[in-house]
């Protein structure tokens, strides 16, 4: 379900077109139910189009969640102790597929075990977390189990199933229960404006920036920082791009999803950054891990934060570097809770945060430990900033690739400035959704998209 591929849009148009054609043959009284059935079928078909493995694993987790919950809620009281085992069963496919290789090959050193060679089903991290939250919300808040069809649409709403936002029961389920195919020009216009921004982020900015990320640049601190900038921009425009298209697609269908990003690189502190970056995941960890551990009301609050961020790192990828990335942000948050420049020094906080985030992306993208250590040493030691390193940077910036990369970094900077203006007016991404800007974005996307088949980074998580 790659929004950047023409195939997705053709399949979606075909699926929705067929659904609407059949709808004409359905009696008025039956259309209410038909719409929800058709939505579920379109979603399932799009998952099958990704791969059968993706669909089957998704369907397995979905069915186990629903019927497990049904069994538990059917007998109030004594079966509640089965809540945790149900969550464990929900998490089992995620643990096997995503962490099988890490545990068997990286920790146990058994690279020939079957688990070391599994392909991760697309979206498994996202829909598993959404369903875990569903189980906890349903049991903890003693809410009724919805009908299976509404639950299936909640669990498999196609715009958000493979890369979020991770929606909560109270936000998405009521919309699924009320879902109808409606023609509403206002929704479609608003939805399309998000789609245009999202596709511009992904196809024009992220995909072009991805071309220039250099691997293993040696102990040249300048080039490593340049890589960090390129990756920071790429991953943001890639993931935010996906999320904005998902938001727009949802709106076109009359469903309002959660805004998953709010200009995170403009954050002035670590706490603010995590309230702006992958918002629904941050909220998930806060509500289902951090607060149950005692949150900030216990003496071990700092340890709680580190645990949450280590797990968050592991959620992003099965590797030591991802754990290190999570811990780095955890430590940053702990430090910031005691000291961080604020008020008239907020600009220093903003600058510090930006440097810290850029540094942290190095831990994220460099999966080879030896290269990562080399990069960290280069960035932290004066030797990395030698005259030869500077010459290396100058040479690259003067090359054809360097010039094109700088042009796209410039375009990205301009886009971030427009985000800042939007925030100033309390309208997230508002400047980019103005009609004339949208026209420019369409032209830029058509003309500048590199055409390389870059999957969304977060599909791998």
């Amino acid at each position, binding site marked *: 379900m790659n929004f950047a591929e023409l195939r997705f849009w053709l399949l979606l148009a075909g699926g929705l077109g067929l659904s609407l054609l059949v709808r004409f043959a359905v009696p008025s009284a039956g259309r209410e139910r038909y719409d929800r059935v058709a939505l579920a079928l379109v979603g399932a078909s799009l998952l099958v189009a990704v791969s059968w493995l993706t669909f089957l694993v998704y369907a397995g987790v979905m069915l186990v969640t629903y019927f497990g919950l049904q069994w538990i809620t059917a007998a109030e009281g004594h079966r509640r102790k089965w809540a945790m085992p149900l969550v464990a069963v929900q998490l089992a496919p995620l643990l096997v597929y995503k962490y099988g290789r890490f545990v068997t090959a990286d920790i146990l050193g058994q690279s020939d075990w079957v688990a070391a060679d599994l392909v991760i089903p697309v979206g498994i991290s996202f829909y598993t977390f959404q369903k875990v939250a569903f189980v906890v919300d349903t049991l903890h808040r003693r809410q009724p189990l919805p009908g299976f069809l509404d639950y299936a649409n909640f669990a498999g709403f196609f715009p958000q199933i493979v890369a979020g936002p991770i929606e909560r029961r109270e936000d998405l389920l009521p919309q699924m229960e009320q879902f109808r195919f409606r023609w509403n020009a206002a929704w479609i216009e608003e939805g*399309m404006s998000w789609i245009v921004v999202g596709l511009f982020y992904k196809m024009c900015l992220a995909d072009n920036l991805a071309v220039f990320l250099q691997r293993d640049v040696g102990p040249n601190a300048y080039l490593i920082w340049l890589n960090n900038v390129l990756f920071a921009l790429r991953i943001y425009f890639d993931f935010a791009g996906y999320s904005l298209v998902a938001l727009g697609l949802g709106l076109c269908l009359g469903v309002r999803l959660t805004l998953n990003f709010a200009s995170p690189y403009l954050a002035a502190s670590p706490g603010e950054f995590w309230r702006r970056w992958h918002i629904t995941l941050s909220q998930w960890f806060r509500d289902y891990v951090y607060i149950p551990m005692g949150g900030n009301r216990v003496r071990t609050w700092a340890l709680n934060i580190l645990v949450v961020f280590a797990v968050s790192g592991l959620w992003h990828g099965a590797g030591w570097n991802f754990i290190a990335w999570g811990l780095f942000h955890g430590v940053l948050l702990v430090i910031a809770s005691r000291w961080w420049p604020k008020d008239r020094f907020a600009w220093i906080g903003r600058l510090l945060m930006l440097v810290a985030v850029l540094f942290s992306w190095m831990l994220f993208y460099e999966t080879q430990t030896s290269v990562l250590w080399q990069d960290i040493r280069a960035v932290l030691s004066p030797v990395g900033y030698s005259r030869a390193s500077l010459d290396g940077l100058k040479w690259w910036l003067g090359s054809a690739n360097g010039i094109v990369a700088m042009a796209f970094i410039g375009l990205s900077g301009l886009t971030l400035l427009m985000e800042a203006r939007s925030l100033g007016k309390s309208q997230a991404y508002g400047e980019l959704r103005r009609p004339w800007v949208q026209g420019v974005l369409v032209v830029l996307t058509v003309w500048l998209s*590199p055409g390389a088949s870059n999957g969304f980074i977060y599909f791998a998580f």
Partner: protein
Amino acid sequence: MDSSTSHSERWPKRVLGLGLVLLLAWAAGAAYTLYFNVEMRLTRFMFDRKLSWMERRLPATNRVIVFGGSSSSFSISPAFALEQGVPMVNLGMGAGIGARVLTRMTLAQSRPGDTLVMALEPDLLSADTAVTLIGAQSAVVLGHPGWANESLDPDPDANGTIAPYVWALRPGGSHVVTMLGKLVQRRPLYRYQAEDFFEDGQQQTEVRGELGGFRGHPAPRLSPDGRAWVRATRAYCERKGLKLVYALPWTLTEPASEADVRRLHAGFLADLAQEVDVLRDERLGCITDRSWYCDTRFHMTLAGSRERTGAMVSSLKSGLRWTETELRALAATR
């Protein structure tokens, strides 16, 4: 569909407007790509020039067809090979066209009995071989959009869906920025021109640059996708009665890194030798003489190209191939 006109007009006019902008932008991009893009115009010219040599000067079969990126275009001299008694054509084009389209455009010209020398740059086989934007554009401009189909089947007559070719008719970010930069600097829009091509299709240039030799970064590695492509090409050639060999392009190498680069190249070729015959070349693609290169570390001068062509002709005549064992031993040499 239920209508909710109470809080909205009937047609989303803004969306229709954006759709119109999309269509116009694409149409302008397509017109530019097909008629004004200097790179595509030169691609068409060079391909015609190379085919013309093949038709006029080579026999109908038992020909040697060398293909790859621009390293081939610069370093192989068919006229010199012909003097040595080898009927050769140089189908080297731009490396940006990518492995799949370069291979298919060659297979489309081949006949049973021909020997195909795959001289694709290691970079083209070290990563994903998916069709590039330039590859798809070239296929369309040359009148064979099917060459850009996304399958792993090298058959040049296979056709895919039309959508990717249609979407490929856009300039792309790298091209637009490069052209704008050249316009601002009042430099020629493209470094190469029709006058750079000899009658035999070999390319040369007067441009000279300060060249840095290859130091072994990034190390060439045969990717799973590259391996699959080479394997599929070999199978196709076997079915069609074509001989396929791989020849590593000659790359300007830093003298201090020569030993390392030789080992890396040997390792890369050992992986390739599992899939296809590898033409023996004692230099293992490492050249330290800068005077053999013009504007990049892959583009050879006339002097360099005579050495390269002579070595290739000699290996082809003698039928010498590397074995995987020999290459593994060279890769392990300290």
